[in-house]
């Protein structure tokens, strides 16, 4: 009897605490029941979403030279790419001799480990904050170069991305 009352008291205290500060929340929205914001749940700056390719604005071409180092280090072999001679280099605008021609990532296979970003020597690939990319189509998550560049550009704008090789120091 005494124990039951004690237990009820603790439950009551905890419930009161729970009312002040909700433990759960509706999935995509932030805030609580009273103040609901429909913005998506914020992620941490280092959050690793799906990989994307970056865009060199100074030159107007992708950073990626299709050197395939990320492809060789990918634990799940989810990427493939081809390379071509860089037309901008012939015009003298770019220092990259080769440039990416096509790039495909199967996001269904990707395990978001970030190894590709770690090994890239050209700052070309980045883990974007995109993490809700379900589609209704089979293989709808096999994304190609334009989509990857668009994702990467969006990430660059949103996070003031600095190329890792130029970071710090």
């Amino acid at each position: 009897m005494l124990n039951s009352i004690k237990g009820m008291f603790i439950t009551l205290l905890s419930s009161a605490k729970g009312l002040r500060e909700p433990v759960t929340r509706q999935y995509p929205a932030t805030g609580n029941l009273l103040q609901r914001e429909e913005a998506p749940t914020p992620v941490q700056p280092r959050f690793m979403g799906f990989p994307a390719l970056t865009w060199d604005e100074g030159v107007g071409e992708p950073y990626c030279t299709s050197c395939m180092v990320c492809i060789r280090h990918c634990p799940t072999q989810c990427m493939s790419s081809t390379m071509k001679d860089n037309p901008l280099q012939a015009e003298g605008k770019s220092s990259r001799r080769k440039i990416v021609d096509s790039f495909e990532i199967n996001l269904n296979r990707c395990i978001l480990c970030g190894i590709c970003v770690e090994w890239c020597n050209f700052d070309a690939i980045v883990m974007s904050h995109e993490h809700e990319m379900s589609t209704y189509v089979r293989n709808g998550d096999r994304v190609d170069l334009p989509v990857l560049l668009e994702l990467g550009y969006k990430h660059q704008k949103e996070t003031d991305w600095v190329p890792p090789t130029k970071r710090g120091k």
Partner: protein
Amino acid sequence: MADAARNVTAPPLDSGAAQARPVSGEPVEMLLNMGPQHPSTHGVFRMVLWVDGEKIVDIVPHIGYLHRGSEKLCEGEQYHQVITLFDRLDYIANFNNEHVYVRAVERLMGLEVPERAEYLRVILCELNRIASHLLFIATMGLDAGAMTPSMFCFRGRERIQALFEAVSGARMMHNYFRIGGLKEDVPEDFMPRLRELMPQIREDLEESDKLLSFNEIFLARLKDISPVTAEDAIDYGLTGPCLRASGVEYDVRKAAPYSLYDRFDFNVPTGLDGDCWDRYYLRVQECYESLSIIEQAMEQMPAEGNVLSSLGRRLVRPPAGEVYVRAENPRGEIGVYLVSDGSDRPYRLKVRPPSFCNLSAIRLMLINTWVADSVVILGSLDIVMGEVDR
């Protein structure tokens, strides 16, 4: 009758034996399938129970539903890629798994790890131990029928995982430890956030502890259920909290201190009876010990310094040889046996998973208990099927 049932393996489900087998003058025995899709089996674990009324006469466990061939996959991956596979063994305690693997490779190569990296590893591993135990407390409450504590435990775990996300970029599959150190230094606001987090974790722990541990109904469901003697626990190879609950003071962090664990002052809590409640309460006590280890590590840790060894980031090719490294995971003692032939991929990698060895005692623990108790008994072992099946 009962003895005969013990000596058979479970017949196929369509053999007709799945129905009750009335034998003249004998109590009716029934074959009851529990799992693999049963919420209280904590994953895809199947138990075939021979029950006599509500009493369990015999049990045949079936594992392998989550078998992914991780050990074989490791042989095809380069050393730095294997870390991602270790994240997916015990998917509740990822940092601890990564730690034991990178230690195995470092031992093989004779690598020195910078002190700061090692301290950060210890802090993250102990935080992960608390997160894992919080999940255990939550599911233990759910198994016994208590809904509320799980909400509070998940809130505490969520706070820890938010910090993990800030550090490594992922809530669960971190891939943060590297051979020779860490992927990168922790973010600048890590220490303030951790200092802020510590009292919050303690509060969450105390709250669920108060709600659950000495609750009368909870005690009635767990106390004196399926006690395991110290001899049995040792014979069956139980490790971790399941062994210590039986009164054996054995913790790899104390028995064979690895990493920096010889620099911290902490207790190894032990239980008395080895019953379900002891197994539960021991984990609660361990959380407080982990908190004290983190506090000590925060004090001792050098404020800045390298977090990756002089080797840096590059493909590693350990010299040919073999090594066995063990560590204390939240679930028990994990062992990694690694054979290298000098190439960039492991020649053989064998994991001794704590959950698998703890699960081997399930038959001993379940026989002559009630069906309703089988849920809490299995829950008190705290198995993770990703690690059992590998």
